[in-house]
């Protein structure tokens, strides 16, 4: 079990202090136009032209919320899996999310893509967001101690007036094998490393850390961000996208979706009313919720349940959206025993409140609604692809030839796996064993 990085204080240690936030807001940021978008080191970055100004007052923080409170938001989400592993550009996901423009308010959007780094598929890709290129140095020194950095580069951006003020993005392709330091599990080791950066480096934030995948996110409408991150130039076999309608935290790029850990990515519509306990629960296992948003806790819960505790996707979903006791009580002895134990052992992991989320990972996408279905989620099937979306219209926009569209039952997981990975589930309830794509 990874140790709890950082402090394990009582009570308030879970909230970033106001003082810390105020300090971060009192320094200025070198103008974004000074950042070179080529892969060579930019000015102000080791190896590039020095700013030579010493401690520059910083204008604001991109990676941390300016508010000391839980972030609330509502959203649109879309994702699709090409079950035959066919890679395609980010063009369609951008079009789909643009269709749901009004579900966001331009204060957040983002994408996750799987299969985008086939040449470096066996290395972990760390996408890191910095407030300022200066901040990269310390993190990179830490990274070099922790992992073998095979390659480091800026994430290519399409600079435009729309995003004149943005954080600094880099990605690192790293290998852990030589540096496990007693950990026998690469995942735990990398989780520790990522948590350490997110907790201890105030101006840096690891956006994603899986193999052959990455997330791209920020403040703006998602279709604009897709262009900004040059997503049409990437090719992936799974894409998810998110349009955000936050009720606070303008300008907080770190707060946009997806949230990711290892190759888990979450896009989420809703508010997790049980966040207060979910956050304390995952902290017991060494996961630090640094972002004050309820979405990141979902990624950590999946990592805990599936990767560390070995639950199946279906069982993990039963933990997160547990069946009602009245439904459990009427089951046959064996299943009642199983579900009763899942619910009581993982009571603090249950997600309560309205939500629909898509969990992306290398093998597919899992879609899940809260158990009374307080947020929309529809599923569509067209050819070898399965689409999950807040709105049917978004699916029809990019897949006019869609063969079937349905709304999954509250609390019933939709599990869409690559053909090579396993059998999918359609989330239509009752027929728990019914495959999503019979004959597809």
């Amino acid at each position: 079990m990874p140790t709890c990085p950082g402090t394990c204080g009582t009570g308030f240690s879970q909230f970033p202090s106001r003082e810390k936030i105020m300090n971060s807001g009192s320094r200025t940021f070198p103008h974004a136009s000074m950042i070179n978008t080529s892969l060579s080191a930019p000015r102000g970055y080791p190896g590039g032209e020095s700013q030579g100004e010493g401690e520059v007052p910083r204008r604001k923080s991109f990676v941390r919320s300016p508010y000391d409170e839980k972030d609330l938001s509502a959203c649109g989400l879309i994702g699709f899996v090409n079950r035959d592993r066919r890679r395609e550009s980010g063009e369609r996901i951008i079009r789909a999310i643009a269709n749901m423009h009004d579900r966001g308010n331009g204060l957040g959007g983002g994408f996750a893509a799987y299969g985008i780094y086939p040449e470096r598929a066996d290395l972990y890709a760390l996408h890191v967001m910095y407030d300022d290129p200066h901040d990269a140095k310390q993190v990179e020194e830490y990274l070099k101690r922790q992992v073998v950095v095979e390659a480091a580069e800026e994430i290519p951006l399409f600079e435009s007036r729309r995003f004149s003020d943005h954080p600094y993005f880099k990605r690192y392709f790293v290998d852990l094998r030589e540096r496990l330091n007693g950990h026998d599990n690469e995942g735990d080791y990398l989780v520790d490393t990522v948590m350490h950066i997110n907790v201890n480096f105030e101006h840096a934030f690891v956006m994603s850390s899986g193999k052959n995948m990455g997330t791209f996110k920020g403040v703006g409408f998602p279709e604009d961000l897709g262009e900004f991150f040059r997503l049409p130039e990437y090719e992936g076999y799974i894409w998810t996208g998110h349009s955000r309608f936050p009720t606070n935290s303008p300008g907080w790029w770190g707060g946009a979706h997806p949230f990711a850990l290892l190759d888990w990515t979450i896009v989420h519509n809703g508010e997790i009313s049980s966040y207060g306990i979910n956050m304390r629960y995952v902290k017991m296992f060494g996961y630090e919720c640094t972002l004050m948003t309820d979405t990141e806790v979902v990624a950590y819960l999946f990592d805990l349940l599936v990767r560390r505790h070995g639950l199946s996707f279906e069982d993990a979903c039963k933990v997160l959206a547990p069946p009602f006791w009245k439904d459990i009580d009427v089951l046959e002895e064996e299943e009642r025993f199983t579900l009763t134990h899942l619910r009581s052992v993982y009571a603090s992991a249950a997600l309560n409140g309205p939500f629909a989320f898509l969990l992306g990972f290398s093998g597919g996408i899992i879609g899940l609604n809260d158990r009374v279905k307080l947020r929309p989620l529809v599923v569509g099937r067209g050819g070898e692809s399965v689409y999950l979306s807040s709105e049917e219209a978004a699916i029809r926009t990019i897949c006019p030839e869609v063969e079937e569209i349905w709304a999954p039952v509250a609390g019933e997981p939709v599990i869409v796996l690559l053909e090579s990975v396993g059998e999918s589930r359609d989330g239509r309830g009752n027929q728990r064993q019914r495959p999503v794509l019979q004959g597809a």
Partner: protein
Amino acid sequence: MGNTTTLSDNPRVSNPANTNGSKSGLPPATSPKSDLMGLQSLRPDDHFHSYPEYFVERRHEECIRCLVCVRQCPYDCTYYDPDRDVVYNVHQNCVNCKRCVAMCPTHCIRIERFDSGFRDNGHWGTHLVRGLRKQADTGGVLLTGLGNDLPYPSYFDRIVLDASQVTNPSIDPLREPMELRTYLGRKPESYRPGSPGEVFPNILCEIPVLFAPMSFGAISYNFQHGLALAAQEMGTYFNTGEGGLHPDFRKFRDSVIVQVASGRFGVDPDYLLSSAACEIKIGQGAKPGIGGHLPGEKVNAEISRTRMIPVGTDALSPAPQHDIYSIEDLRLLIYAIKEATEYTRPVSVKIAAVHNTAAIVSGIVRAGADIVVIDGFRGGTGAAPMIIRDHVGIPVEVALAQADQRLREEGIRHQASIIAAGGIRNSADVVKAIALGADAVYIATSAMIAVGCTLCQQCHRGLCAWGITTNRPDLLPRLPADQAAGRLTGLLRGWQHEIQEMLGLMGLNSIESLRGNRLKLRGVGLTQLELQTLGIRQAGL
């Protein structure tokens, strides 16, 4: 401050409040004591403490001389003078139990605080002066019942709850399922269906409110029967306290938690197995660090049978458990009980909330307890020295918050459930305790109030006018078991609805999403350090 008696080595206990009551609760209507105004044992020094605390005012023109008040008063406070055809009161005997007020058919009785207290003094309160005089009189310890009644601040009253607005729909419990089911006991850290894993015994509560330990002896046979019936009806539990389980109540074995306290009264293998769970009592919030005392005069045949002690002997529980002088000894007793019950019952350990509760709870969990009960300083008692009741221990809110946090930091929160006890007054206190980190709560004083208790604090005297804390044959029928059960069920149903409403307005539909969810709480008027101790945030932030 109610009347108090003293625990004295002088058999001639000189407190008029109970010497006069020594005859019976039923003075004949034609009592000849009118000559002495009821003060038969007036002694030369009685004037030191003859200031009445309460004044019984009776509108004689409305009194119909039915004498119900005379018959109902167990404290010999009321008598009838047939010569004058007037009902009089011995005011200094009145404990303000309100039995006569409730029973009077013409409502002609009013009880007021006796206004001629001592000269106003911010430092020497009247209750202190009274106490000093009583002690000087007897050289004894002042005894009292119920919980700490001094005006210490209440953290529950400085915590408010969150509600959903716009970004998160509230859930209507009249239209949607709203789940309060709670499993108490140890859980494994992880559970993978289909894999052989450890399964620990748990008890199921349909409402996270259990009846706190109250022993047969401290409370009446009927009241304990009512608690058992209500617990069974509502899917929760009552607790035997340290008084053993009467043979008549063994049929409630699925609804009872049996306690093993320092006196070990009534403990044998059958007792341990006639239970849903077993509880080791280390301490009690009302009297941390001291034992219990059931006076011999309360030990009648039924209590003798239940506690396995001779009739008429004092039932004295030692202050510590004499086989537990350290944490590893506790482990031995926990496992002795587990062995005796063949690991089929969760074992609970109950402690009083004290300064280093968090560390103690951590030790208790590591010693093998499946449930830990933290009993705060507002918790009630059948009898305790007033000085201890009022000055020892800490509020349950802070002890609970710290214990829950400590168990989480140590990664062992799943190994035991936490029950918070001591001064839970309404469903909001339940919700706040659960959000601070409790799995469930114990209630006792609330349950007593539900069946008629007026908080007169005379539990230790065995004269309860409401039939709750007495087993005197003439007083016992005042609280029939079915009536007690009906009222307790009503209380729990009311709380059930209220808890469901509060969950729904927070956007939650099951209690486990509230448990330890401190983001649902905010502090009002607390210092930064208090907020930090409770692990909650300031209202508005």
